């Protein structure tokens, strides 16, 4: 704990807010517990009603959730939806235009584009989700530790400064170029792209979490935990990180969409997944040369799928951003009631 925080603790906390911190809910006796759970259910039902009211009021948010839900459903049910194997090439089906047999046509290796577009989110979303989650986890933990110890006088201060300056260095590189360099180092493949996405996203979460922690660490429930003798790591994991998470969660959605785009971009320039794995960027890359010769379908359909998916994630991100902001929620509550 830093000197600043210790000074803040010189007066023993008596404010009830100290015991009503998000993670410190006291309960005693079965009756009281039942009352609380009933209250919680009512609150949750109210939140769901509010959520749907917001969606009705803002159809674009609803569209985002629909798009992402459809993409997720397609990802799960791809083997039942796709009419052909997405990785079987057949020279007799070379560059066939869209038809009933091949709704989105075939590519220059004779693979069915519709089947590949359907299967592609399995790769794109897996990479984006894993890459983003890994970066969120690492970035959040590093950000929490850095923020928690910032301003101290020990070696921890030096460590947190070192972490922040390292993040500065990482962020000084153009993200895409940096990702290409990482894939070049790790070698081509799905795991390398995940690693690259995790690496380039980590500083974002680090900064986000750090900024949250800088304010949370001065909260009285944190000080109370400190006075109660909790070790730093316990305070960080139990009291600081959980309360700093909402902005991180809202960033996740935007970041997943962006990671889908980065994955596609890496594959487009030949640094992402290896053909013939169905992946939107790789499909666009394989087909874009044919646009000039009039065969637009190998790249346009995966391009549309990519665009719509990223759009969906960004709409969800916008909705979460608004819903997690109490002030904007109050404004929304006023308009939807």
């Amino acid at each position, binding site marked *: 704990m830093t000197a600043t925080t210790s000074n803040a603790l010189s007066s023993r906390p008596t404010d009830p807010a100290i015991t009503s911190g998000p993670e410190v809910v006291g309960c005693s006796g079965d009756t009281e517990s039942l009352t609380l759970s009933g209250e919680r259910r009512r609150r949750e039902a109210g939140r769901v009603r509010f959520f749907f009211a917001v969606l009705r009021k803002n159809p674009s948010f609803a569209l985002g959730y629909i798009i992402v839900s459809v993409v997720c459903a397609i990802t799960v049910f791809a083997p039942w939806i796709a009419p052909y194997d997405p*990785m*079987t*090439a*057949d*020279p*007799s089906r*070379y*560059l066939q235009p869209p038809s009933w047999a091949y709704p989105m046509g075939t590519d*220059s*290796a*004779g*693979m069915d584009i519709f089947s590949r577009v359907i299967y592609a989110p399995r790769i794109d979303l897996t990479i984006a989700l894993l890459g983003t989650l890994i970066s969120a986890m690492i970035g959040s933990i590093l950000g929490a530790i850095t923020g928690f110890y910032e301003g101290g006088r020990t070696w921890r201060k030096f460590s947190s400064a070192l972490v922040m300056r390292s993040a500065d260095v990482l962020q000084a590189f153009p993200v895409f170029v940096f990702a290409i360099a990482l894939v*070049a180092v790790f070698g*081509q493949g799905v795991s390398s792209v995940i690693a690259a996405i995790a690496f380039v996203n980590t500083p974002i979460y680090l900064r986000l979490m750090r900024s949250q922690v800088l304010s949370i660490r001065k909260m009285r429930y944190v000080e109370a935990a400190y006075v109660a003798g909790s070790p730093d790591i316990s305070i960080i994991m139990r009291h600081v990180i959980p309360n700093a998470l909402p902005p991180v969660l809202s960033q996740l959605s935007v970041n997943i969409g962006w990671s889908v785009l980065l994955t596609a971009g890496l594959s487009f320039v*030949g*640094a992402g997944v*290896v*053909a*013939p794995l169905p992946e939107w960027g790789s499909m666009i890359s*394989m087909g*874009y*040369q*044919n*646009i*000039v*010769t*009039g*065969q637009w379908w190998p790249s346009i359909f995966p391009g549309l799928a990519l665009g719509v998916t990223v759009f969906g994630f960004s709409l969800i991100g916008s909705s979460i951003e608004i819903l997690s902001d109490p002030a904007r929620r109050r404004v929304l509550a006023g308009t939807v009631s």
Partner: protein
Amino acid sequence: MDNNPVDQSAFGLSRRSLMKGGIALTGLSALSSVAGVTSAFGQSVPTLIVASPQTPQSLDSEFDISLGTVDAYGVLYENLIEFAKIPDPKVPGVMREDTGSYPDKPGGVNAVGKLAESWEMDPGARWAKFKLREGVISNWGNELTAEDVVWSWRRKFELGGVGLFYLATLGLTKPEQIKAEDKYIVSFSPENPNPMLVRIMANLFAHVFDSTKCKEVGGEEDPWAKEFLRNETASFAPYVVERLERGQQAVFKAREDYYGGKPFFDRVIYREVPTSAARVSLLRGGAVDIAQFLQPLEVIQLKNVPNVEVNTIDATSMLWIELNAVVAPFDNKLVRQAMNFAFPQEEIIKTVFQDLGAPLIGAMPWFYPSFTDQYWQYGQNLEKARELLKEAGFESGFSTTLSYNAGDPVHEQIAILYQSALRQIGINLELKKYPAGTFYNAVSERKEPMIFYQDNPWTPDPGYAMSLYFDSKSFVNYSNYNNKEVDELLYKIARSADESERVKMSQRVQEIVMEEAPWVFVAYPNYHWAHKTGVKGLTYYTSNNIRYQDLSRS
């Protein structure tokens, strides 16, 4: 201000008219910089604009064989001789080299003189002599002499670059074997007889430098003018390099004093346009005169574009997949044969190449002397492939990797089709994409189990062509193929002056190679000549480059 007579110049120029003039001049100069269409005197000068994947990286033939550089050598340097030109039997209006065998001519070659006006060769192939033209002047004003030829070949000995291959091919082991007999006669006398002594002088890398200039600029510090020749030329060729901006463009300027007469095009602007789709767009839009190295579908599409002409010409190019003979399971001949029987060659020619090429059914270009297709035994037959795998002990298949060049869309298409075909016989083929910049490193490292390679042997000689790829000591033998009998036969072919013996030995090499299948035989891709209507005069050379001095515009 407008009333002030001082503001109006004596020539009646107002600020507005100056601005108008400035804008017009800016536009014109921009246009000139793109097309180079006006001379210093405002007269139109013929300029040719070429869109190509790569500008020259270096102008020194010892150290660079990249695409743009090879194109540059053809216009910036001159050889002693060249093959006589004959009309292409399939493409009207296009000429090609006469690569046939002519036993009654010196060296068995139908050649015409360039820097040499006559030549003779010992019937036993022990020596060849070339009499140079007199009064030929370099771009630095120095006269061509036999010393220039001697210096050019000695440079190969000293620098140890690409030239070493040519020295080895000719069996030249000492600089003294190249001698200036007098001011205008130069002789080559290798240790052993060599039937290629004349033929190889038409090769793009057998050109002659202006040694006087090279010695002058290099001095004692750089006696072989390495630094100078990276960016400049000292030669007797029809063009000089006016500007070289790597990655952007090279500008070649015609020489007024070229001994063969000034070329039609005063300037050639050689623009780097990396993607073929962009090159096609530029040609369609009329921004360039020639678009090089296009994809088959693009060629088909350009055939219907007004004001654009496309010809596809039988070429020396061969595309194959190296099967690394020292990496299991390709150290087993039966597996290599099975890989060929699994390859959907005909379908690939039809789809990927759009029939603008032919199946690779031999070990050298099909129009080279001594070529035979009688040992071709493959073609897709999955049942046969399964049998061979079973015999080789791989009944349940195996996994391996095929590496390809991200810069060549054809590679990826073939790789995916091949992958699907191999899956049917239990072989799991993983694809590995190399960026264009590192692909050739991967090829030359010879570590990948399977990797694409495309090449064209420039000298139309069976010994030359097959030594490149099948001699165990050749640096281009990227499949690590090693067969003692083949090595011995190639050694003898390179030293025999008996043409009928050479043919017999060449055919035996082809028999062994086709049986042992060190490659997956893919295709002979055609050469595509896509240009604006009116540009004419193309000669197809075995080195697959355009020599702009051949061209004119009607």
